[in-house]
């Protein structure tokens, strides 16, 4: 990774849909360079993916909830992850270290559907405990401030 790569990432963080031609002009390199480097950064996992942000209140959701799950001992923790990865409205699952083992972020349509989700997670044999918080945040998938992270090149 070099300065050009970093600048491409910075431009895409301003707008992930910006045409390569425009980025090329901005950075004074050829569009082909941008294209090749973008592809490479995706292959290497430097860029994970791009997505649009959505106001979830406009698509029928009231908020979000964070499920904090503790795995049961002597059970395969992957069972929890795999099950959560399939559940309706659960759009992000993270393995965590700390007070609990898994964090799942879900959109909340209404109380009934959320209660059902919690019941379904509780019913998993690999889950010993579930806590949750509900937030009224309407941003999907994350707040735009994620794109304003101060990025730096790693020291060689």
């Amino acid at each position, binding site marked *: *990774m070099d300065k050009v790569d970093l600048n491409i990432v910075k431009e895409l963080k301003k707008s992930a849909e910006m045409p390569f031609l425009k980025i090329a002009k901005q950075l004074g390199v050829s569009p082909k360079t941008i294209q090749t480097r973008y592809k490479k950064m995706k292959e290497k996992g430097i860029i994970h993916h791009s997505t*649009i942000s959505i106001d979830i209140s406009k698509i029928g959701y009231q908020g979000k909830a964070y499920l904090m799950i503790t795995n049961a001992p002597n059970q395969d923790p992957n069972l929890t992850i795999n099950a959560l990865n399939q559940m309706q409205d659960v759009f992000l*699952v993270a393995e965590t270290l700390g*007070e609990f083992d898994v964090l799942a972020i879900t959109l909340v349509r209404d109380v009934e559907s959320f209660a059902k989700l919690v019941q379904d997670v509780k019913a998993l044999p690999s889950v010993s405990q579930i806590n*949750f*918080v509900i*937030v009224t945040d309407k941003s999907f998938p994350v707040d735009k401030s*994620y794109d304003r992270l101060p990025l730096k090149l*790693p020291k060689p």
Partner: protein
Amino acid sequence: MEIDEIDIKILRMLIKDARTNLRAIAKDCSLSANAIHKRVNRLKAAGVITGTILFINPELFGLKHSATVGINLEPSEEPKVANLIRKYAYLIHIDRSLGKYDICAFIIAKNMKQIEMLKENIRKHTGVRRIAINFWSKTYFNYRNIGLKPERVEPHGQSRSKHRKRIKEKR
């Protein structure tokens, strides 16, 4: 405005990849690229699509630790604690929450030292009863799980620019 099946198809493809070629979407919907372009603009103007996000591997950019911070505290101390978090780490999002914690924050930090300082200083802050930090290791994105169905977007869902325009007109 109404969100119909075609809008849902467009949203799904753009959620999967914000750089999806509009022509590819057009082909998939048997519509012209121009028609898709108009629909995307309409979704933006109605405030359904609010922007884009580029997910990167923060570790490769000198940001080693991603974590969730849950805090129980006196409500009056919320703004001060939020500023305290900002002082030691990069605060992506903070929310007042219902349930286990009173506020819930997502942070990214350069190193462990920053997180230790953050934890110590928040713990010491008046009105804070409890702080719990959970570090993220592996993350899975499952956007396909989101249930999209035809929807009516309420009139108050007009874009900010339109709203501003209206306010200007009133003046």
